[in-house]
């Protein structure tokens, strides 16, 4: 009997350590990243303007459709007529967002992608050409839709059916 007890105790001693020592392995992963401040610009359709294709992105299309000095114009298009030209415009929202930046506001510039010797282009009331970037605002507010209407002034001398197309490049710079 005593011998059986001894054997049982010995067996228990042998079993307990194997149960207690779970097999583990470890490793370390050191992660490094450097944060930089950044800003983002997107175009949004303005409720009062023409619906943009690509709204919410930084590459949108504003299609005025058929325009004329005296005929009907599309929804969202505002027209004014002068003695020898007419101007069509549409509200366009620009939303600039910042991250990891203490910048209070931004400067927005615009420039035509190609020369247009016939028509006059304006963004937010500022004439833009392809010669140099024009400052549209120097105090743009972040994280809100700012309406900077796009306007094109077309001479009466323009032939009917003429397609007017250009790209306006916008650049926002954190102040």
């Amino acid at each position, binding site marked *: 009997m005593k011998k059986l007890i001894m054997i049982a105790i010995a067996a228990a001693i042998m079993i307990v350590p194997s149960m207690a020592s*779970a*097999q*583990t*392995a*470890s*490793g*370390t*992963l*050191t*992660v*490094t*990243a*450097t*944060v*930089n*401040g*950044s*800003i*983002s610009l997107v175009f949004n359709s303005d409720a009062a303007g023409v619906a943009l294709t690509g709204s919410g992105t930084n590459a949108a299309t504003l299609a005025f459709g058929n325009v004329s000095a005296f005929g009907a114009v599309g929804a969202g298009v505002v027209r004014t007529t002068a003695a020898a030209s007419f101007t069509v415009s549409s509200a366009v929202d620009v939303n600039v*967002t*910042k*991250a*990891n*930046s*203490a910048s209070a506001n931004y400067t927005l510039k615009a420039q035509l992608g190609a020369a247009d010797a016939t028509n006059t282009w304006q963004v937010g009331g500022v004439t833009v050409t392809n010669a140099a970037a024009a400052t549209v605002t120097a105090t743009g507010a972040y*994280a809100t839709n700012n309406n900077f209407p796009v306007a094109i002034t077309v001479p009466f001398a323009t032939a009917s059916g003429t397609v007017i197309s250009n790209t306006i490049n916008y650049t926002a710079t954190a102040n």
Partner: protein
Amino acid sequence: MLNKSNSIRMTVYAALLLAGASLWAQTTASGTINAVFLNESGIALIFDTDPGGVPLGASGTTAVTANFGTVSAFGPLAGGVTRPSVTAATFTVRTRFDVQVIESGLASANYTLTAALQGAAPVGFTYAIDAVTLTGAAQTIQVNGAYNVDVPHNLDLIISTASPTGGGPSVGTPASQTINFTATAN
């Protein structure tokens, strides 16, 4: 006299060596070695670079580094780094890395992987692996890890968009954090 004795001794040695070589060529001998070894069971954990992630420093070892490079909410990112989300409050940058747990001599079918931050995270940073947010306490990442294969994991850095003066992360300064992993055989 001493030189002569040395010469005789060298001659005898040479003769013995030659005789030995001759005998070896003409006979065979056999022997047995009774080798006894103890097969120690165990597991080991290493990190491997994932093809879709940033190259790990010291890949294939137990102590590696992952450098995201320069990250921002809207700017370009390094190869192997993606930006799955940007919100007004945070942006997330992600890379993938592989964990391989090697098993030997165990009856264990799989392993449990846990991870914990070593020390406090840099201001403005939150770390997550496979969407499990890490803290100073071990968090379970996987409960059924397969042995002896690279198991990919997503490492997310969730970074506040606040400015440094507004409680956000430091800008332009590398922020480092070590994550401790433990694999336990099931």
